[in-house]
């Protein structure tokens, strides 16, 4: 690559953030299209990066694209250091795609448009930064940078209980990041010479850090990441945040932000603290199991469509945790990454669809609908498609990831894991239960013509918004090899690192 593509990825939306701030606030069209432009470029860059990585590096492990390290704050050894491998490339792809789609989905925002879009671009810069950063300070900065726009996006443009949801989200996450900060400081002060370079620390931490401190740092990082995932019982911020957040923010929240948690574990905790990982493997798998079953059961009880999808995320991210508990199995870890990607597509799409319905009906109460299949067949068809993808129907991406997680964890030659996985498979039944129940109560049955006779079909913009997600879900469900090839070498290497 003959230009610093990662820096471009991060700084273009950042420039967009500033540029949009300087636009006159009444020129709504200009603001929208400028924002679209500033998120379109990173999307194309992320596609290009993925393509390039796939063709040149997918067979080999390690950081191939690095930019830096350039000394940034020398006295405390802070560097500007970016790099990507098979874990981050799919996440950048997902972030680029979902950010652009979300911006498009936000064109119907009318309140304080300028601030909304500039916050959104800042958020995008933060997200892309997290997936590229290889220096802890930088990582932490990007991590916190996301928090602020997210807080405002929920708190200002959200639903009726937006303040509560926003502050809950903010405090939860801040609580977690404080633990992360302490853990980073432990690493910094214990290393000699002091360093914040994540790659170096992955190499050296197991040898220089005392056992007890490794456990402690692992737990601190885990709290920070677990809140993001969210791992049960840290999940209660999620349904509130989702229900109150505007559609596009929900998409980003579910599609990208949740993945930061599992990404952090794969990038930091697991390779850096292999001993602690082994120590906590079974409890982590158990947390995954609880999330799968608990999330599915609670989804079943939901009356609000968006909350149902939100809780389904808790359940689906549980598969990732289960896989992370089965750290010896490359198949399970691949399944984890695949699930992160696939869940981003499917749940992102589901939230977009919920938004489309809400825009028309001004309610998300499942019981308020019925028989909509008669009136809006395209919407119904797509919603059924995404529901099927979500419940893991073969031929779509969700099945591939769930299956890899299950078979990897089941055969990871740990009897406890085999049992845990065996129970976790019940999730496929429960997921079918709540998804089909939802489909039935909204789209099937008798149609209330008086109440919903005026409902209109999806327009072209909305269809185009979800079409790429539908296509990708099917494509990587039928032919997952490109995605698994990108991750393969990196993940094999990761499992070796963890086996140290």
């Amino acid at each position, binding site marked *: 690559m003959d230009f610093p593509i990662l820096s471009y990825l991060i700084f273009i939306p950042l420039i967009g953030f500033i540029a949009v701030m300087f636009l006159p606030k009444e020129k709504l069209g200009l603001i929208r299209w400028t924002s679209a432009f500033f998120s379109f470029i990173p999307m194309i860059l992320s596609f290009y990066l993925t393509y390039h990585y796939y063709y040149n590096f997918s067979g080999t492990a390690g950081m191939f694209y690095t930019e830096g390290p350039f000394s940034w704050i020398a006295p405390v050894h802070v560097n500007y250091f970016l790099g990507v491998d098979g874990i981050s490339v799919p996440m950048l792809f997902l972030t680029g795609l979902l950010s652009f789609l979300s911006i498009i989905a936000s064109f119907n925002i009318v309140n304080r448009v300028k601030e909304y879009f500039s916050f959104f671009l800042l958020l995008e810069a933060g997200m892309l930064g997290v997936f590229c950063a290889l220096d802890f300070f930088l990582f932490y900065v990007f991590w916190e940078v996301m928090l602020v726009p997210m807080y405002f996006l929920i708190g200002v443009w959200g639903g009726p209980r937006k303040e509560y949801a926003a502050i*809950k989200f903010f*405090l*939860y996450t801040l609580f977690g990041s404080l633990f992360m900060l302490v853990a980073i400081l432990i690493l910094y002060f214990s290393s000699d010479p002091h360093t914040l370079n994540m790659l170096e620390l992955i190499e050296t931490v197991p040898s220089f850090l005392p056992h007890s401190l490794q456990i402690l740092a692992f737990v601190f990082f885990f709290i920070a990441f677990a809140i993001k995932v969210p791992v049960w*019982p840290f999940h*209660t911020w999620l*349904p509130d945040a989702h229900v109150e957040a505007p559609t596009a923010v929900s998409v980003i929240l579910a599609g990208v932000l949740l993945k930061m948690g599992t990404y952090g574990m794969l990038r930091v905790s697991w390779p850096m603290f292999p001993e602690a990982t082994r120590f906590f493997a079974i409890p982590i798998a158990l947390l995954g199991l609880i999330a799968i079953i608990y999330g599915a*059961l*609670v*989804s*079943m*009880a*939901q009356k609000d469509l968006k909350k149902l999808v939100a809780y389904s995320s808790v359940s689906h991210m549980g598969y990732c945790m289960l896989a992370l508990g089965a750290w010896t*199995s*490359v*198949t*399970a*870890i*691949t*399944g984890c990454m695949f699930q992160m990607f696939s869940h981003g597509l499917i749940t992102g799409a589901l939230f977009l669809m919920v938004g489309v319905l809400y825009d028309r009906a001004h309610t998300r109460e499942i019981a308020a609908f019925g*028989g909509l*299949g*008669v009136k809006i*067949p395209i919407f119904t068809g797509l919603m059924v498609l995404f529901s*099927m993808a979500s419940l893991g*129907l*073969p*031929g779509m991406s969700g*099945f*591939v990831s769930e*299956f*890899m997680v*299950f*078979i*990897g964890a*089941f*055969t990871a030659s740990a009897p406890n894991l*085999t049992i845990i*996985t*065996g129970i976790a*498979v*019940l999730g*496929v*039944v429960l997921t*079918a*239960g709540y998804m*089909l*129940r939802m489909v*039935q109560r909204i*789209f*099937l*049955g*008798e*149609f209330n013509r008086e109440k919903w006779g005026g409902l209109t079909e999806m327009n072209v913009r909305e269809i185009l918004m979800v079409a790429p997600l539908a296509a990708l879900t099917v494509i990587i469900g*039928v*032919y*997952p*090899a490109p995605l*698994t*090839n990108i991750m*393969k070498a990196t993940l094999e290497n990761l499992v070796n690192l963890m086996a140290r």
Partner: protein
Amino acid sequence: MELPLYLIPLFPLAGFLLNGLLIGRLHKRIISLIACGSVGLSFIYGVKFFVDLISLPEQSRVIENIVFTWIPSGHFHVNIAFLLDPLSAVMVLVVAGVSFIIHIYSIGYMHDDKGYGRYFAYLNLFVFSMLILVLADNYLLMFVGWEGVGLCSYLLIGFWFEKKSAADAGKKAFIFNRVGDFGFLLGLFIIFWQIGSLDFIAVFEKAPTMFVAGGGLITAATLLLFVGATGKSAQIPLYVWLPDAMEGPTPVSALIHAATMVTAGVYMIARSNVLYMMAPVSLAVVAIVGIATALLAATIALAQNDIKRVLAYSTISQLGYMFVACGVAAFAAGIFHLMTHAFFKALLFLGSGSVIHALAGQQDMRYMGGLKRAMPITFPTFLIATLAIAGIPGLSGFFSKDEILWKSFSSDYGSIWLWAIALLTACLTAFYMFRLVFLTFYGEGRMDVRTREHMHESPKVMTIPLTILAILAVIGGYVGIPHVLGGDNRFEKFLEPVMHGRYHPSGEEAHALASSGYGASTEMLLMAVSVVLIIIFIYLAYHFYLKNTAAAGKLRDRFSGVHKIIYGKYFVDELYGALIVRPIVNGSLFLWKIFDVLIIDGLINGMATVIGDISTGLRPAQSGVLRTYATIFLVGVVVVIGYLLVK
């Protein structure tokens, strides 16, 4: 040039995509041309490959086609690949053939439906999935087809989704199948765990060395696979979805819920025969569940009034029969019955569809009767199918059913009890089927005048499929004439390489099967007994439902308690509702309202309140008065210095 196998499922997929994406944009004629044409092409290619297959020497009858690597990750590796051997060849011909006939029939049956395009798109998707299921060369791809047919079943049961009962039935079918899938998946995991592959050939080759015969793991794996089969093939305890599935259009009931999809479980077990042969306990479970289901469903069928429901319970019962065959290690007999059943049961459903069509949607037999004359093609074809299912000598059902009866008695895994109950079931089958025929076609018409005036035979596009199926229902059995009747059971011989030759060189169970130890005279005797009993039960049906109709009512009143239980289908649905569904729904509400909202959020909000209170308490300290700050600062400095000095 060698044609690849994947063409067989590819045609219906193309048909699905064309009709599915251009929904509502095409003329009906074109829609049906695409749909029927694609399935017809599949059938033609199926025949072509069948011919290729039988031209190969007997022991090497396998055609493989690897399309691409599907899931590669770590140690796990699975292909999209197809395998044609005698077993899958039979299935392809049955599936594509019967599907084609039913597609044609549907042109007439669905002609006035506004969802015409959608219907045919789903139907093609079904054929595609079913062909994937039977052609897959590994368990995972088979599972893809398995789930695919489940999806189509869901979509087609709920085809008229504005009707709440139809939507409910679709959901029920899907969820019950998912319960089965839970078992199926776990079974796959155990197989992969022990063998390191899911490819049929590898699994069956390695199983004898990687599993301990009769051990816990192989027993668990086969039992779990069987759980999957009970879901798909509607056996105890997961059978309750199938009767409700009759909410779908009748051709769908014929194709999916009688002839093809529901037999997938039988196919899967026959396919896995090597594994089951290693797990005698599982075989016994299969046989017991099969026979119990066969009997239970037959008793329920005695008392139902809805013509399609009778047929649905009959299907469950016949599937139970096939499982009995598998359970006594007579896999070929199970597949034989699967095939003949596909012909006559499809015919029965299509015939009932023709009746329903003639009566403007009436499905209740209490409002039928005397249709014999009005339906000169439907009636005789229906009668042929009924004779076939009853097991009257000379028709297809006789051969396959008798084969199962004989094997349930003579096999090393069989017993006289198994045979006796199977025979009882056969008698009940003859009884309820003739009850159905007498109530529908004979006696006085009990429909209202308007309906009676509009009664008519169905159009040619529907009656020709009936005729073809009737021919098949007669001759279908002649490929498997048993030795005792002078035949050489070519069907069994054809399947032999799959059942226990190729994958299992030792041929132990071939030996076990051959040494049944009973003579031809025993077989003839049992055959005679069953034929006589069946004819007696047909007479009984005649007696109660045609000759002396009051007697039926009297009988019912006499045993009103029993009748209520049978009519209420043993209240299994209610039981499941109370024992499983209710607790889950209540439990989910509890977890949400109590655990999530009250406990976790309560803790967190409580913590926030406490922190808020503390900070409120501390607020006076931040008075903004500089002097106070300076004083506190000074005190602090003194304390620190003092501490350092003392230390």
